[in-house]
Every structure is written in structure tokens, then in C-alpha cells.
């Protein structure tokens, strides 16, 4: 064993190691701090720790580094992806503050944060993996604790049902995923990404089946149609903080990981997986939209909206280019802000009043103008209305897909934006236009929650207009190399 490698490990695996360190610190805080101190500061500490992790590890490295003989890959782009996830997680934690410190949940507060951090760690592994074993461990680390989190609420709501649905679907799809990996192993004899790319015989049925199984495994996390069916039920039943975590962070991580798996492992046969994705994207966007238009429960509604968003995200994968990666990461970043703004508002209102139905939101603007505005901005951004960030991200992701020649696909996606606009406007309509005799009373948002929403709104407003974010990502993507 070569001890000199430890230096490198510290250097290249900084985000992962720092995150684990932060988790351990949280353990100790949870163990030794007084409950009153924790009531006030636990979220703060968690966010702070995560922020520190982000700040320390986001030093942009210049080139691609591999560790463990290719099992772990660290590139500037992967670091950026991890940072994107971190930002999202911080926002989720901010918004979860009010809920997690409520009487019913306070007891399991420590576990909540720890599990969040663990899943984040799993996602890091997925993104940075260069080997299917690591990838699989990452995938499981990122989904099993989430199943626990989904079933977090113990009172008489739908949390347990969601937990079971998530878990069984996750386990089943991971079994299929494993089957796929085993076939790939049978074909190439190695599970290192670069080995597979080098040796796989792509024009065999076995390869295709393996690819389909692997896409299923990851598509489940991304909730692509037809692997999406768990999404709505789980989003609806899970605690709102977890729903938002699932819908942005978990989905984002899966998308990032998907890029690497497809681009690195299956680069010899792009036309095969592009063909599959072509169909999946159309199905995903369309079905997501079709289901979304008839939802009344806002969390369920956002679930379907997030399904169709996943379809848009996949356009960046289809592009199979540096531009596509840039657009995808940017899209997810924007999506995190937009979706979390929506969830922030929903979480606040749900926490205070327990109402999540769209009809309950009628006349919200009269009583809660600021929350309504935030919600509206989120909806507009999700629908891709300028000058909000969603417009830019959508434009760039379409541009990247068109660049690779997918005119028809983009056209279908664009037609779907009309449907999506329809249901996003329904929410806006409920808040601004519909009359209501007893609207939700004026709500005073807590400090953390407010910060969370304000940051999201700021992101929605600024991410598009400030071109530096996209520019930075674009520079990073050039280091990926095709």
C-alpha cells in the first residue's frame, strides 16, 4: 500500500470526506448539546456545516483526477454538480426547520439531518463513481435512507404508505438494475467504466437488454415514464421537506449520475441509448403533463410537474455534448431554486394550516401577498417564462438538443410546455384570481423558512439574468471531453 496516495485522497475526495466529517460533527452536536439550544440552532448548524463543506470544496480544480485506479473520478464538473446539490440541500434544510422542530418531529431531528447527509454522500459517490460497484453503493445509499425519511411522519397521515411504496419500488428497480450490471459484466468482464466502454460488444441483444435494465434502475430515481409511477404517491405522502428533497436533490443527482454512466460507459453506442431516451422523453413529458393537469393536491401536482421536468432534463443528456452537460447542470440548478421556492411556500402553509389543496389556495394573494408572489415566480420559472431563470434554462437545454439535431423531439417538448403552462397557471389563478370566502389566514413565516424562500426567489430572478453561472458551467464542461 502506498501511503503517498492518502494525500491525493484528501485532495480529490474533499467533498465526500468533508461531508462525512460534518455528519460526525452533527452526531456529536445531537448527542451533547442541550435540547433548547438545538431547537434554535440545530438547523443553523446543519446548514452552516453544509455551507462550509461547499465553500471548502468548491475550489475549482483544473483537471480530471482519478483515484483508486479509476474507481473514483473527480473532475471540475463533478465538483460543480456536488456543489449544486449542496446548495439545494441547504435550502431544503432551511425550509424544513419549522417542521422538524415541531413537537411531533423534534425527537427524531438528529436522525433527519444525519440521514440527509448520508444520502447526500451517496449521491456524491454516484456522481463521482468510475465503477459500477461504487455506483451501486452510492445509489443504495442515496435511496434506502430516503425510504426511511419518507416514512418519517408517525402520525396518522400517508407517510407510511409512501415509505412502503418508495422502498418496494426502489428495491425492485435496483434488482433489475443489478441484473443489468451482471449482464454488462458478462459482456465486458470488468465493472470499471472505461473498461466497459473499451471492450463491450455493443451490437448484441445482451448489451441492449443490459442497457435497458440499467436505464430502468436510474430512470426510477429520475422518475422517467414508465418508471415514474411511485413518484406522485410518494411525493404526496412524504413530509414536505422530504418531498422537496426527493424532487430536486435526488432527481438532480440521478440525472448527473446518468450523464456519467451513459457518456462514459455507453459511449460506444450512443445511438442505442439515445433511441431509448428519445421515446422515454416524449412519454415522460407528455404523461407527466397529462397527469398534472388534473391534480388538486399541490404536492401531487408538483410530483407530476417534476416528472415532466425530468423529461426536459433528459434533453440535455440526449444532446450528448459539452453544451448538453452545461445546459443540464444549469437546468437542474434553476430547477432546484424554482421547485424549492414552490415547496417552501407549500411547506410553510402546510405547516401552519395543514392545507395542501389547490382550492385552499384560492384568494391567497389577498392574505399572503408575499408567499403568493414567491409561488407565482416559482410557477413562472418552472413554466419557462422570462425573465425568470426557468426560461433561460429551458432555452439552453432545447438549444443543446437542437444542436444535436433533435428538432422533432424539441418540438414535441415545446408543445408540451403549453400544457405545462396551463397547469402552472392554474396555481397562479387560484392564488390571484379565484375568490374565496375564507382564505388561508395571514401567515408569519419563520426566519429560516423566509430565508429559504427569499434565497430561492433571488435565484429565480438572478440566475438567468446573470450569465456568469452558465458561463462558468460552460467552461467546466469543456474539460469533460468527448
Amino acid at each position, binding site marked *: 500500500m502506498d501511503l503517498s496516495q492518502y494525500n491525493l485522497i484528501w485532495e480529490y475526495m474533499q467533498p465526500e470526506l468533508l461531508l462525512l466529517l460534518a455528519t460526525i460533527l452533527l452526531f456529536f452536536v445531537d448527542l451533547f448539546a442541550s435540547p433548547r439550544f438545538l431547537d434554535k440552532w440545530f438547523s443553523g448548524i446543519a446548514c452552516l456545516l453544509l455551507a462550509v463543506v461547499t465553500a471548502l470544496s468548491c475550489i475549482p480544480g483544473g483537471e480530471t483526477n482519478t483515484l483508486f485506479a479509476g474507481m473514483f473520478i473527480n473532475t471540475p464538473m463533478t465538483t460543480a454538480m456536488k456543489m449544486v446539490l449542496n446548495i439545494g440541500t441547504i435550502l431544503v434544510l432551511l425550509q424544513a426547520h419549522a417542521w422538524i422542530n415541531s413537537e411531533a418531529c423534534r425527537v427524531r431531528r438528529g436522525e433527519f439531518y444525519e440521514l440527509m447527509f448520508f444520502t447526500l454522500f451517496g449521491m456524491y459517490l454516484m456522481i463521482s463513481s468510475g465503477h459500477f460497484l461504487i455506483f451501486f453503493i452510492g445509489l443504495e445509499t442515496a435511496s434506502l435512507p430516503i425510504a426511511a425519511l419518507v416514512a418519517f411522519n408517525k402520525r396518522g397521515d400517508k407517510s407510511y404508505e409512501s415509505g412502503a411504496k418508495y422502498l418496494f419500488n426502489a428495491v425492485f428497480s435496483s434488482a433489475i438494475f443489478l441484473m443489468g450490471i451482471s449482464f454488462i459484466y458478462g459482456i465486458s468482464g470488468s465493472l470499471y467504466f472505461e473498461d466497459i466502454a473499451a471492450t463491450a460488444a455493443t451490437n448484441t441483444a445482451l448489451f441492449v437488454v443490459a442497457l435497458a435494465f440499467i436505464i430502468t434502475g436510474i430512470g426510477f430515481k429520475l422518475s422517467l415514464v414508465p418508471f415514474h409511477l411511485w413518484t406522485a404517491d410518494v411525493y404526496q405522502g412524504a413530509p414536505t421537506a422530504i418531498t422537496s428533497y426527493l424532487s430536486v436533490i435526488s432527481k438532480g443527482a440521478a440525472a448527473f449520475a446518468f450523464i456519467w454512466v451513459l457518456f462514459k460507459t455507453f459511449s460506444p453506442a450512443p445511438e442505442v441509448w439515445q433511441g431509448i431516451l428519445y421515446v422515454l422523453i416524449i412519454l415522460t413529458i407528455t404523461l407527466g403533463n397529462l397527469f398534472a393537469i388534473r391534480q388538486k393536491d399541490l404536492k401531487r401536482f408538483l410530483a407530476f410537474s417534476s416528472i415532466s421536468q425530468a423529461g426536459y432534463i433528459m434533453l440535455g443528456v440526449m444532446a450528448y455534448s459539452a453544451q448538453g452537460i452545461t445546459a443540464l447542470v444549469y437546468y437542474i440548478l434553476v430547477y432546484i431554486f424554482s421547485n424549492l421556492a414552490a415547496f417552501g411556500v407549500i411547506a410553510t402553509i402546510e405547516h401552519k394550516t395543514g392545507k395542501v389543496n389547490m382550492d385552499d389556495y384560492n384568494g391567497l394573494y389577498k392574505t399572503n401577498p408575499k408567499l403568493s408572489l414567491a409561488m407565482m415566480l416559482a410557477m413562472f420559472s418552472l413554466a419557462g417564462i*422570462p425573465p425568470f431563470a426557468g426560461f433561460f434554462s429551458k432555452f439552453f437545454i*432545447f438549444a443543446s438538443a437542437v444542436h444535436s439535431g433533435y428538432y422533432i423531439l424539441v418540438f414535441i417538448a415545446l408543445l408540451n410546455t403549453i400544457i405545462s403552462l396551463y397547469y402552472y397557471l392554474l396555481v397562479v389563478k387560484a392564488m390571484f384570481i379565484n375568490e374565496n370566502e375564507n382564505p388561508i389566514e395571514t401567515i408569519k413565516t419563520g426566519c429560516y423558512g423566509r430565508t429559504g424562500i427569499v434565497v430561492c426567489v433571488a435565484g429565480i430572478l438572478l440566475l438567468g439574468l446573470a450569465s456568469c453561472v452558465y458561463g462558468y458551467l460552460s467552461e467546466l464542461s469543456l474539460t469533460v471531453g468527448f
Partner: protein
Amino acid sequence: MNFLSLFVLIPILMMAGLAIARDMKQIRTVAVTFSTLQLGLAIYTVIKYLAERAAGNTEEMLFQVSTMWYEPLNIHYAVGVDGISIVMLLLTAIIVFAGVFASWKIEPLSKEFFLWLTLLSIGVYGFFISIDLFTMFMFYEVALIPMYLLIGVWGSGKKNYSAMKLTLMLMGGSALLMLGIIGIYYHSAPEGGTLTMNILEIARNNAIPHEWQYYLFPLTFVGFGILGAMFPFHTWSPDGHASAPTAVSMLHAGVLMKLGGYGCFRVAIYLMPFAAQELSWIFLILTGVSVVYGAFSACVQTDLKYINAYSSVSHCGLVLFAILMLNNTAMTGAVMQMLSHGLMTALFFALIGMIYGRTHTRDIREMGGLMQILPFLSVCYVIAGLASLGLPGLSGFVAEMTIFVGSFQHTDTFHRVFTIVACCSIVITAVYILRVVGKLLYGAVQNEHHRELTDATWWERLSAVTLIICVAAIGCLPGWISELISNSLNAIVERLS
């Protein structure tokens, strides 16, 4: 800092001002101050433009400024104006100015109303000053979305349905447009060249392959055409206009629908001249149909706003029709028609709003003899009507004649025959205008309650008079404006030959 950006900056400041305004008085003060400022700026721009041209500046676009925005895609924030855009800017400024006065007593949520209205105007101004496709498209969509809330919250009738339909159909248009724009972008430079979004550069490169133009031209043309109420994608217009509040109808019919026409030639025709020539016949048929069809439909409507909306379909159809003739005169006519229709339809909607505000009905069967009760409004209505049916001395005539003469200069018999078809609309227009005037204003008072109505207040008068003066000014002295437009069109027309 380029002064053109002020067109966008002033409304932003206005929004800030509105946000801190406390009561109705302050809101009005802010709205009036800034819209006047904006009008001043528009006039200043025109003067400065003319001075610059007189000084011999022959650049295609003046006051150009280009700031790199998204470097990876070579997207710029690029602004510049030519004769057409400044005319449109002036139109917008006038209508916003008049619109502020027309919505003097808007309720409820007056602050929000003005905020949204201002956002709408940001989109419009931005669209007209942009010469970068991306920025242009962005402003285009910015202009569309406030419509939803403006109609939904402050509208009347089946406002939810209308607002949704309008928004979705226009977004459908912009979906086509987005694909078109991205497509143009990827063919904007010859093999190996730097791709660009700048309209002027794309035109200069002239690199869009012909077979691609066949796809991209319909996308962009229909995309913008939907906003220009092109048959059969015009159905948002009657419902939308009927449900919208006064100032919104004014701005939407007056300015927003012009975005469609402007976009059609600035993007579709200017950048894809080959396809424009090859495919113009298809759209000529569609627009020719919409000219006559809109007019016929207007003949049997009973709701004032529906009449006007269908009339807009007809008139805006004429705009697109003329654009497709692809010669300088007809296109000049198209721009003048945009200007003229913008002003007079805004006037119409303002008056309808004022009448509706008093009688609480827009059904012409329930009203009558308003001339005796509301002489000022009625006279204005007659003037608007006369402008609409193309009375010489008012703007409509100038525009229509330029279009007809220009279109008839086309060398192709097919185009000339269609011009004659379009000409027929002037008779039908007369029919429905006179029908309304006869039923609404003349005759005996239908509803005795109406006798107690009061005539226009000072702000309403100001709003209407502003527009009438503009309509008459263009109608009486069209020469300079026509020359201004026609000179700027040369560059576009040259590319077509």
C-alpha cells in the same frame, strides 16, 4: 450606457416607484410621470434618429450597442433601432400614455394592475429595441405573460377561459418561435463560422441553407403570426379582447399584436428571404382569408369588443398580407397599418371601456342613442370608426392605400388577384362600422337609465384626444413617416431580390 436601454430601464424604475407607492394618488403620479417620461424619450429618439440620418449616417441600425451576455452561445444584449422600430416605440409610448389615463380608476388592486401593465410594456419596448434574437424572444415572452393576470384579475365576462386561451395560444406561438429561433441560430453562420444571434450578422452571413429555410420560415412566421391574429390562429383575440380590461385591450390590440407583424418581417422574412419568396403564397392565402373573414365575422357580432376584435383580425391580417408582398411599398404600408391600427384600435378599446364603464353592457342591442347622452365619447367613437374604415385624413386610409398600391405592384398575377380580394374588406369594414355607429350612437335612447350617464371625465378626454390627434396627424401628414419606414425597409427588400 446606451440611451435605448432607457426604454427598458424607465419601466423598471416605474415598477420600483409603484412598489413603494402608498395610495392611489401616488400610484397615479408615478404612472403618469414615468409614462410621460417614456413618451418624451420616444419622441427624443425619433428626433435624434432623424438628425442622425440627416447627418448622413447610412448604417442599417442606429445607436447600436452590443454587450456580450451569454458567451458560450454568443448571445448578446444587442440593441439598435431603425425607422420601423422607432415608429413602433413611439406607438407604444403613446398607447401606454393613453392607457394610464384610461385606467385612472382601475379597481381593485390598482398598484398591481400598473405593475403588470408596466411589465408588459417592458416586454414590448425591449422587443422593439432588440436586434439579438434571444433578447428579442425573451422580451417577447415577457410581454405575453402579464396578460394572463391582467385579464384574469381585472377582466370581465368569461375572463378565466379567455385569459387561459389567450395565454396558451400565444405560448403555442412562441413555442414554434423558439424552435425557429434555435434553428436559425444553428444555421446562422457558414460552416466553421461563429454562430450568432445578432439579426444583422445573420443577415450579413446569409448562411441559412435553402432547405432549412423551408422549415424555419413557417415556424417563425406562424409563431409570430399567431400573435398577429393570423387565420386560423386568431381565436384567442375575440375572447381575449372581450374579457380584458380597457387599458389591457388597448395595449394588447394596439401594441402587442404588432409584435407579431414586426417579428414576421424582422425575423422571418429578413433572415429567410428565399423561403419567404417561395412560401409566401401559402400565407398570402391565409392572411388574405383572415382579412375578409375577420371583416365578415365582425358584421354580425353584437358585443362591441367582439366587433373590434374581429376588426383587428381583419386589419392585422392586412399587415401580414402586406408583409408577404415582399416589396418596399407594401411593407411600408404594413408598418403604417400597424401604427395606424395600433392607434385607432386603442382608441376604440378605450372608448368601449369608457362606455362599458357607464352602461355596464357591451351589447349593442341594449344600447342606443348614446350620441345624445355622451356626445364626446360618441364623437370620438365616430372618428375612430371613420379611421377604421379608411377615411382620408385619418391614419387608416394612408396605411391601407399604401398596402393596396404596393401589393398591386407585385409582378405576379396571383398576388394582384389576392390584393383585390383584400381590397373588398374596405366595403365590409364600412358595413360593420356603420352598423355599430348606427345602432349604438344614433337613433333613440334604448335604455332610459342611460339618460343619467355623464360624459367623459378629463382623464378620459385626455386619453382619447391624445390618440385622436395621433391618428389625425398620421392621416394628414404621412409623408415623413412613410419615408422613414420605407428607407429602413430598403435593407430588407434588397435581400429579397
